């Protein structure tokens, strides 16, 4: 096989693996469910198109012109999309460095590892472009339907942005390897990915709070101060937005820039990729022992030992650390809103209560999965001399205590604004967290902690049940904080969700 044939074969191999990985994530690894998943996906896509139509129809009703306001909103939307693509690309590139699966095979094969890693980097860009295109498709298609086919050029812009995001992620990851070493790169890259993915959205919300006292980013983007501060209409800054609006020259410029950038990155860094991947894969081989005297064993009963183990593992989980950081980052705007309105007559607790309940409900679901399903030594725990329900209780206590530690300062701050609001929020968080834990218990599957990323694909029912339960408890808490009886129907909806989840679950 010549070099070109090898490259083409390897590209096909990489894309097949990426497709199977995605298909498995969607079907939860069960091929029998593929048809059901396809039908479900089609219904979901149709619903998203309907939602996109509802949002875009009033805006595009008279057609979109390249006004300053349109350019600002489009550019901000593209920047937010790009920040999410960057976040995804950083995660994918880092994972490619640490994936040991076929590293030995690649490096021991007679094919050029530089070429093979070039294909691997390119396939990350292609997979990223496909994923983002899928997410943006309802809006792009609807805009094309409402305002003309020139909107379809947005797909090309997304592809170009994916090339740039992947190239930048490779540079960033290699810079991290060189500066902090392979041992710390994964954790730091995951934290950067979390921050990059959330930063722009949170920044806009912070600006909205400081300028307008609300969480609406559109108030900021459509404000006269932004229009005045923005570059003039002829600036290159608007090139991506102009490309989306149908400017062919702008589109070609963006595509050439994206492809050129990734090609340059591949040409310069593909050879180093292999060396760093080897270094990353060897991290475990040269982990240093901690120096100094260790603390003595603590006297513990079995349930205390289980709780201590869960906390130690939660603290040391890099993926969880980045996810928790992201949850906390998303809480920054509401916390800022609380601080800004402290002492005023506005009922900020009514806005904050549902946000906090929603965030902690979701966090509890993730932690509960780690504690109940993600058990790395199930045989050890199952053969320990204690009742199964004592094991479950101890693990859930560990989750609830971890949630309490993170939530307590926020509830305390809320208490300064409204005691009743703080009490309602505390109860809401406790109930939402308990519900999320219960759902995880009903849909428990045997897994290891490193399968955490795929936990939501194991059961779509549990994922939706967890999301709806958190939403309804958040609604109930918001109304309760406002002293409204509308809290009751939301609480009933949450209970109905839980009941349905229980009866559908394998334990029901």
């Amino acid at each position, binding site marked *: 096989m010549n070099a070109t044939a090898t490259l083409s074969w390897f590209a096909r191999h990489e894309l097949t693996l990426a497709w199977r990985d995605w298909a498995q994530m969607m079907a939860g690894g069960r091929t029998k469910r593929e048809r059901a998943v396809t039908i479900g996906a089609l219904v979901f896509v149709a619903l998203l198109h309907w939602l996109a139509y509802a949002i875009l129809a009033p805006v595009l009703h008279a057609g979109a012109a390249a006004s300053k306001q349109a350019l600002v909103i489009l550019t901000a939307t593209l920047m937010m999309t790009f920040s999410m693509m960057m976040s995804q690309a950083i995660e994918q590139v880092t994972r490619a460095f640490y994936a040991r699966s076929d590293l030995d095979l690649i490096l021991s094969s007679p094919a050029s590892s530089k070429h093979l890693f070039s294909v691997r980097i390119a396939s990350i860009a292609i997979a990223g472009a496909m994923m983002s295109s899928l997410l943006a498709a309802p809006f792009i298609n609807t805009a094309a339907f409402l305002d003309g086919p020139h909107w379809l050029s947005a797909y090309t812009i997304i592809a170009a942005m994916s090339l740039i995001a992947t190239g930048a992620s490779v540079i960033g990851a290699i810079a991290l390897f060189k500066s902090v070493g392979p041992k710390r790169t994964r954790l730091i890259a995951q934290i950067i990915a979390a921050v990059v993915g959330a930063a722009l959205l949170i920044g806009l919300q912070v600006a909205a709070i400081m300028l307008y006292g609300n969480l609406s980013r559109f108030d900021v983007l459509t404000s006269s101060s932004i229009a005045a501060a923005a570059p003039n209409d002829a600036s290159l800054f608007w090139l991506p937005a102009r490309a989306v609006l149908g400017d062919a020259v702008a589109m070609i410029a963006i595509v050439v820039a994206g492809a050129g950038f990734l090609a340059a990155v591949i040409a310069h860094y593909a050879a180093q990729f292999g060396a760093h991947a080897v270094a990353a894969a060897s991290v475990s081989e040269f982990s240093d022992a901690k120096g100094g005297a260790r603390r003595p064993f*603590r006297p513990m009963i079995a349930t205390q030992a289980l709780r201590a183990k869960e906390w130690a*593992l939660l603290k040391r989980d890099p993926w969880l650390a980045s996810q928790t950081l992201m949850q906390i980052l998303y809480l920054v705007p509401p916390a800022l809103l609380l601080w800004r309105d402290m002492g005023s007559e506005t009922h900020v607790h009514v806005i904050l209560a549902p946000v906090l309940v929603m965030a902690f409900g979701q966090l509890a679901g993730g932690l509960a999965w780690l504690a109940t399903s993600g058990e790395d030594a199930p045989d*050890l725990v199952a053969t320990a001399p*204690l009742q199964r329900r004592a094991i479950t209780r101890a693990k859930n206590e560990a989750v609830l205590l971890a949630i309490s530690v993170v939530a307590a300062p926020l509830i305390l701050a809320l208490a300064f604004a409204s005691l009743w609001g703080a009490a309602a929020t505390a109860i809401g968080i406790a109930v939402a967290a308990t519900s999320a834990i219960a759902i995880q218990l009903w849909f428990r599957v045997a897994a290891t902690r490193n399968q955490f990323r795929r936990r939501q694909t194991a059961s779509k029912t549990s994922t939706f049940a967890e999301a709806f339960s958190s939403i309804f408890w958040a609604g109930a808490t918001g109304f309760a904080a406002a002293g409204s009886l509308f809290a009751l129907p939301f609480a009933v909806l949450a209970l109905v969700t839980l009941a349905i989840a229980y009866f559908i679950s394998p334990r029901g």
Partner: protein
Amino acid sequence: MRSAAPALEIKNLRKTYARPAVDDLSLRIERGVFYALLGPNGAGKTTTLRMVAGLLQPDAGEISICGIDVRRAAVEAKSVMAWVPDEPMIYDKLDPMEYLEFVAGLWAMDAKRAEVQARALIQILGLEPHANTRCQGLSKGMRQKVALAGALIHDPELIILDEPLTGLDAASARQVKEVLRQRVANGTTVIMTTHILEVAERMAERIGVIAHGRLIAEGTLSELSAQAGHAGTNLEEIFLSLTGTGTATASTSAAA
């Protein structure tokens, strides 16, 4: 009387999946014995031992460990036994000492005694240089030794090991065999499955052979030889003769 009861007694044990995995199996293992459970792949060894460890529910039959009925008093039975699976299941983010502290906590050991035991096991098993290294950095052999240390720390009366020597280098395998021998000498019962027949032949006082979910032969090496019609002098020949797997190999060799 618990003290007079055998370490393990199984009566008419059954477990069926698509086909019977364990089929009316009965077995009695006295205390202080090194027992090897042998059988071809898929014979039902691991299924049997997982039922003994309380990790699988039998369809029928009785299991008692040191006189304790596993189904009626599961917690009490678990407190006197330890199970080590073939794949070492330990926590990547804990170091070996933290892992042993956790296991000691699960078995509600006195903290001071647990720490002394942990340090001794770490030393005996050659894990000292890695005692404070997170387990994600350990090789499979070292992980296997950490799992074994976890099984030994609470001084169980019965230790069940599924393929404990897989992945161990010669020096580590010797360390593990020595530790197990010492435990047996001190009155502990060890039940081990293995495909390395030389190890079973050299270490086990009694050997059970399972095929198709049934115990087809049981006894000392010479008793097994008699049961196999004096088919051979070493365990490999006896095993192949008992399980019938030797015939196919012989014909294949002959054909070749």
